[in-house]
């Protein structure tokens, strides 16, 4: 593969996790536990959707350098099959109860902030620019989701039990965030991609500190699920795509 093809694949990884998580957060619209939280959580979703659009836009430009043409944002977001998505498995896990949504968000936000901080120094100027813009938003996302983890963990007996079980259940999807396959290793060597394995220590430290403050038990290192980067997904992605893509599938190329 040419390095443009590798970069294209990497940009899809960045875009897809943002897009899929944004879609899940959008499912909370009108269903949030309170009005204020409904607005706040879906704001985070919109931030992520905005970041996904920037990554897709650049991915389409990069694709045009090595393919006959580059696909548009809509084509990339809505007209691929599940196996062509490169998002983290964590992002596609269902909303569940509010504790599960918060735990998923917290794991992702801490990683996302570390990732974008590194990518802001990428040797690819466009990558650096998009990452720096997103980082400012993600700084707030982390603060919000960490505050909620502490609130639920250090809250009532019921909220503590729910967030602890969510923290435990999603743990096996966190290992994938720190993997680097051949694609990423090549791009890391070129100074373009973030060295994801190097983020693990800082992530565990930050997550551990919040969980401790929340009186929660940090799960022990265990077997980790992975596959999102290779297009091997859990059963949840198909259901999400069926809903997310229905409009573009029924009316290809529709605009409004």
């Amino acid at each position: 593969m040419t390095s443009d093809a590798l970069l294209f694949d990497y940009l899809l990884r960045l875009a897809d996790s943002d897009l899929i998580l944004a879609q899940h957060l959008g499912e909370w619209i009108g269903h949030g536990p309170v009005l204020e939280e409904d607005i706040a959580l879906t704001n985070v979703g919109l931030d992520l959707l905005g970041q996904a659009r920037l990554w897709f836009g650049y991915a389409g430009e990069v694709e045009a350098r090595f393919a006959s043409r580059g696909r548009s944002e809509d084509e990339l977001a809505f007209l691929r099959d599940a196996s062509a998505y490169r998002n983290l498995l964590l992002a596609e896990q269902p909303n569940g109860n509010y504790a599960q949504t918060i735990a998923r968000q917290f794991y992702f936000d801490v990683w996302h902030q570390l990732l974008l901080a590194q990518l802001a120094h990428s040797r690819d100027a466009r990558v650096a620019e998009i990452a720096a813009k997103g980082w400012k938003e993600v700084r707030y996302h982390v603060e919000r989701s960490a505050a909620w983890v502490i609130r639920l963990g250090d809250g009532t007996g019921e909220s503590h039990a729910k967030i602890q079980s969510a923290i435990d259940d999603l743990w096996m999807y966190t290992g994938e965030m720190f993997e680097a396959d051949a694609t990423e290793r090549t791009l890391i060597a070129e100074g373009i991609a973030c060295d994801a394995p190097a983020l693990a220590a800082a992530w565990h430290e930050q997550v551990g500190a919040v969980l401790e403050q929340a009186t929660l038990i940090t799960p022990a290192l265990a077997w980790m699920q992975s596959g999102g980067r290779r297009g091997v997904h859990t059963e949840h992605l198909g259901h999400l795509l069926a809903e997310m893509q229905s409009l573009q599938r029924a009316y290809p190329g529709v605009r409004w």
Partner: protein
Amino acid sequence: MQVEWPLWEIFIRSQHGLAHKHVGSLHAADAEMAIKNARDVYTRRNEGVSIWVVASADVSASAPGEKEPLFEPANSKVYRHPTFFPMPDEVKHI
């Protein structure tokens, strides 16, 4: 057990040099959450540089029934408005 979170009054300062202005109210479990919620509900379009939150329960307000004794005496005293001074045309922005 209290089901609903307490109400908070939200004040936003829109830019340096202007006072905080009341923009509305929202529910939150405590002051910290009220500030975060206010950020998301009231400052999405770059409205603010500073947020104050005040528990609605801590606001003392004049009673609507006291409107007449409080405000009516001022109605007939137009001379309290500074509109009786002839201003030179050269003076602007008064």
